[in-house]
């Protein structure tokens, strides 16, 4: 018999109807419970879609320590002066009030996979049937010699948005005339591949206004980076001579920093800088490691539903996951969350499960009205999430198209914010 999609859905519902009732009773509680750790683009989207589409049939708890979440995406635009800080902050009020999600502002510090419970820093335990973990990134200790988390005031990372972003901007604004802004760029893989280079663009935009003789130095352990041709074209056009990048051939991979004296050591040569943005090497958020669903630095997941390869009751989304070809981005996390939400609902309530589909687009701003983008679509294969096709902005595009691309990114920000936070 040829199984069409309609038949497939029907079959899914019937199977679940026979299975789900005993499962729930056996678990000893009324409704299936989903706990989501992390209220960013992955976690908040998953919580919202599960709550919205199950219409009360699933109990959803979201654990996120901050009351106001500042998005990493568009935080560079705050540094450049294109957004005010409040505009990249989001609260969880709508998710709690309109979607009935139990939002707990606390840190998850433990996961008991046998008891299926999450321990909070406050001491209580939260039980789950399915656990979704989406904590973003943490930094690999020692990846930039001389830097650790206690150095983050002297040399901010600003790679988790919030007070770090404000601090970095304030430091750029306080630089002496003709001073040097240094960025230690991260090695692959890391959150938001074009992010460091958009940041350089936004710092240059700010400096052009307030400190036009200042210099920007990128210390880069990578030979190549995302949208390189587009960024370099834009830097030449808008910020001629201000930005220098030292790649691995010239010592960009052999860096030490000295936060006490505001020095960077490049391949043995000591350089005095005024601001130093250190973006260390990255790994999955710590709770992924605590839960024991990590392999190396990241959490391996099945491409079809983002389920952990190490625990059938746990799903890992976004930056923390090792899923295949998708870049670590808010857009990717949001896309993965919707596939995951459908799968979680399907497994707990027997709702329809459609084939996974993923997409991502990253917009970057180089200067006023000079926006660029790169995007791709992906599908789930047995081995990984695999790229199917993509596109990227071209060098030499005219001003109108670049402005349109920027305006599109503003529309996207409004769209994805509403999709994540309600």
């Amino acid at each position, binding site marked *: 018999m040829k199984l069409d*999609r309609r038949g497939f859905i029907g079959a899914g519902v019937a199977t679940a109807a026979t299975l789900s009732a005993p499962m729930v009773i056996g678990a000893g509680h009324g409704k299936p419970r989903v706990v989501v750790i992390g209220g960013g683009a992955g976690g908040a989207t998953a919580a919202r879609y599960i709550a919205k589409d199950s219409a009360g049939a699933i109990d959803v708890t979201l654990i996120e320590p901050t009351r106001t979440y500042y998005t990493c995406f568009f935080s560079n635009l705050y540094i450049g002066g294109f957004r005010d800080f409040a505009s990249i902050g989001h609260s969880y009020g709508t998710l709690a009030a309109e979607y009935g999600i139990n939002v707990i502002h606390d840190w998850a510090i433990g996961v008991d996979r046998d008891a299926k419970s999450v321990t909070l820093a406050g001491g209580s335990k939260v039980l789950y049937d399915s656990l979704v973990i989406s904590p973003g990134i943490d930094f690999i200790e020692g990846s930039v010699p001389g830097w650790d988390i206690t150095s983050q005031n002297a040399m901010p990372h600003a790679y988790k948005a919030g007070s770090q972003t404000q601090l970095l901007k304030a430091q750029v604004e306080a630089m002496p005339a003709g001073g040097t802004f240094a960025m230690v760029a991260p090695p692959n893989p890391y959150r938001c591949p074009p992010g460091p280079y958009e940041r350089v663009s936004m710092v240059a935009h700010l400096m052009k206004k307030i400190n036009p003789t200042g210099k920007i130095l990128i210390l880069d352990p990578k030979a190549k980076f995302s949208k390189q041709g587009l960024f370099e074209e834009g830097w030449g056009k808008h910020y001629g001579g201000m930005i220098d990048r030292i790649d691995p051939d010239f010592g960009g991979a052999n860096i030490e920093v000295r936060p006490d004296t505001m020095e960077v050591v490049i391949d043995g040569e000591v350089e005095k800088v005024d601001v130093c943005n250190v973006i260390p090497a990255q790994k999955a958020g710590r709770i992924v490691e605590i839960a024991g669903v990590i392999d190396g630095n990241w959490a391996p997941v099945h491409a079809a539903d983002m389920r952990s390869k190490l625990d059938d009751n746990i799903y890992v989304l976004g930056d923390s996951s090792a899923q295949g070809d998708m870049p670590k981005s808010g857009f990717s996390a949001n896309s993965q969350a919707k596939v995951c939400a459908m799968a979680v609902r399907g497994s707990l309530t027997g709702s329809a499960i459609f084939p996974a589909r993923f997409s991502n687009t990253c917009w970057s701003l180089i200067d006023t009205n000079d926006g660029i983008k790169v*995007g791709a679509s992906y599908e789930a294969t047995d081995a990984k999430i695999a790229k199917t096709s993509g596109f990227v902005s071209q060098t030499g595009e005219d001003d109108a198209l670049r402005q349109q691309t920027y305006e599109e990114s503003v529309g996207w920000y409004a769209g994805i914010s509403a999709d994540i936070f309600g």
Partner: protein
Amino acid sequence: MPVHAQADVEEGAKLFRRCFSCHMLGVNAFNRTGPHLNDLFGRAAGSVEGFQYSDDMNRAAAGGLIWDVDNLDAFIENPKNLISRTKMRFNGIANPKDRANLMAYLRQFSDNPSNIPEADPTLQARDPDIDPDILAIKGDPEYGAYLSGECVTCHQTGGGDDGIPSIVGWTQLDFVTALQAYKSEHRNHPLMQLMAKRLSNEEIAALAAYFETVER
């Protein structure tokens, strides 16, 4: 083949009666409900001074749309196929011969028509028609609701349309027409082409069925 060899200007003048309540031509032409159509051929879309175009026309203009014979032909055939939310309230002209005649007439009011390369013929074979079988597909709104997750990352369900158009509350015909036009690269937005190309005709119908039900 050159347009004048194929087309009948007088027939075109008759057809223009369907246009002239909104569009003026000739020495005293000014903008009315629609922009004047002097020097239309080779003109950049959305470029007549003093005329307030739709957001979608401005967006197409920013994307580099030029009124060459091919684009005009597509627009006259079905305005919404090319510019989904154009202000032009005109259902289009299905007959290619009629369109050729109308364009031959309009061309009298553009500079030196012989400058338009003959490699850009009016009557070339092209495929802007959407197969009635595709339009007849009944979409599954439940499936469309799932698929819409990919759309609403950018297009706001609340109906906001800053920078990215709103897509809620469209008729199914408009929705299918727009997505099929991206799928066939009739419209040239690379991201939308990417999205549309991997949607089957059934999936496009499902999305159309779903989005028609979403209220602003």
